[in-house]
């Protein structure tokens, strides 16, 4: 059963924030699935990439070391947006999938959860899907999330 199917648009002003999506599971299920995708991943606009690289390098590198980084723009192959998914059940943190692939599927179950998430029997209760917006450089990023609950009768 699909519990949620949502596309959320994020912008540079959402950079370094968490977007919380609460949802409720009304009865125990055997598996909760989270299909996530976001686009764009890679910043294709060369002018934007150039601006992002050059306007930030000085924030991190001490002045005396700046010459070491003067070719930075040429060295940066891909500049990317990074959004990750973390999950909570009631007051318990269930983990996070901190990796770069822009299309990911995760699941929670008692026997095993997908990498990044603790084993968790999907009991009825309040859950939170939290999108961690680590970095947005593109003018707009679309995040698509589909949450599916699988019940006993569906898996037999």
């Amino acid at each position, binding site marked *: 059963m699909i519990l949620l199917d949502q596309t959320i648009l994020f912008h540079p002003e959402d*950079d370094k924030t968490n977007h919380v999506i609460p949802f409720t599971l009304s009865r125990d299920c055997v598996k909760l699935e989270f299909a996530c995708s976001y686009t764009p991943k890679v910043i294709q606009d060369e002018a934007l990439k150039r601006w*992002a690289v050059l306007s930030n*390098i000085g924030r991190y*590198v001490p002045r005396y070391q700046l010459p070491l980084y003067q070719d930075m723009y040429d060295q940066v192959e891909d*500049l990317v947006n990074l959004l990750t998914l*973390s999950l909570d059940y009631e007051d318990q943190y269930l*983990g996070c*999938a901190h990796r770069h692939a822009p299309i990911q599927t995760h699941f929670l179950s008692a026997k095993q959860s997908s990498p*990044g998430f603790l084993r968790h029997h999907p009991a009825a209760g309040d859950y939170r899907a939290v999108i961690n917006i*680590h970095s947005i450089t593109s003018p707009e990023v679309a995040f698509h999330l589909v949450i599916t609950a699988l019940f006993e009768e569906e898996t037999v």
Partner: protein
Amino acid sequence: MIEYKAFEMHSHTFHSDGTFSVESLCQACKVRELDGVALTDHNTMSGWEEITPALEEQTLPVIRGIEWTTFYGHMLVIGADRYVDWRLATPENIDRFTEAISAANGAVGIAHPFSLGSPFCTGCHWEFRVKEWKNIHYVEVWSGPFPLFEPYNEPGFQMWTDLLNQGHRLAASCGIDWHENDLEENHHMPVTCLGVENGEVSTRTAREALRAGRVYVTGGPALDFQIEQSGKRHGLGAAVNSGAATLLWGVDQTARTSQWNSFGLIPRRVAFIQNGGEVLSIELSGQEKEKGQTAYELWPGWIRLELYGDYQGRADQLLGFTSPIYVEKD
């Protein structure tokens, strides 16, 4: 009785963005003759579920950690008794979170403080405005696969020294930040050595060593630095009084030798750094195990030992260093 053991203190598996499994990480660390590895996946503890007594028996003990991968900096959290949420940390409120971790007996370390931040490596640069330094226990001053050569480690090392000079008590660590088994077998890998009780390697003893400052970093030989004062010996992280003291030091080249002796690493001298300045340098004779002692008048502040020598064709390179012994006004 404190014994120093060799660790990799920063690693990732496929539970975050690494390609290692927990098991393959442990196997790789065993090949490196390590005594323990800290599993510090980004923002998750799910890899801990794969740590079994059988795995630790076959490979090596795994220290339970997590790398807080926040929007404003990365922080290594080792051995906390409970999870503290990383998601709400901001530059202004970080003290509240380090306090909670510290109250849960966790050791808190600033990871790679001078890595490039967003948009290059998201949140990798330390931008937190810490006011309560007592809840931060160490700084990862050597980071990355080639820690002796990474340019960003130089300001990180200086940051550590500056913080010590401001009166804060902080140990220092090294972390390869190991994500995948991509290092050739002949890749040189410096280590963090932790002074653990009775040589026991566990999450508890590792976090206690970090919190107490019983930590040194070496690219090669085992190091020893103690201060004798009024008939008592004091190790790394301890506090002594200013005034007359004896510095006791040791360099042991028989430790994990096969892991570093083919990299042109030749120890030449030990130096004592007090309050940021080199106050004493002692030439080594080249013996396998060397130790010595020197009478020295301590000023208030801190003192650490640094090891210098040849490294891959370059002379007088920093090859290792200890965390400080603190000197209080008598």
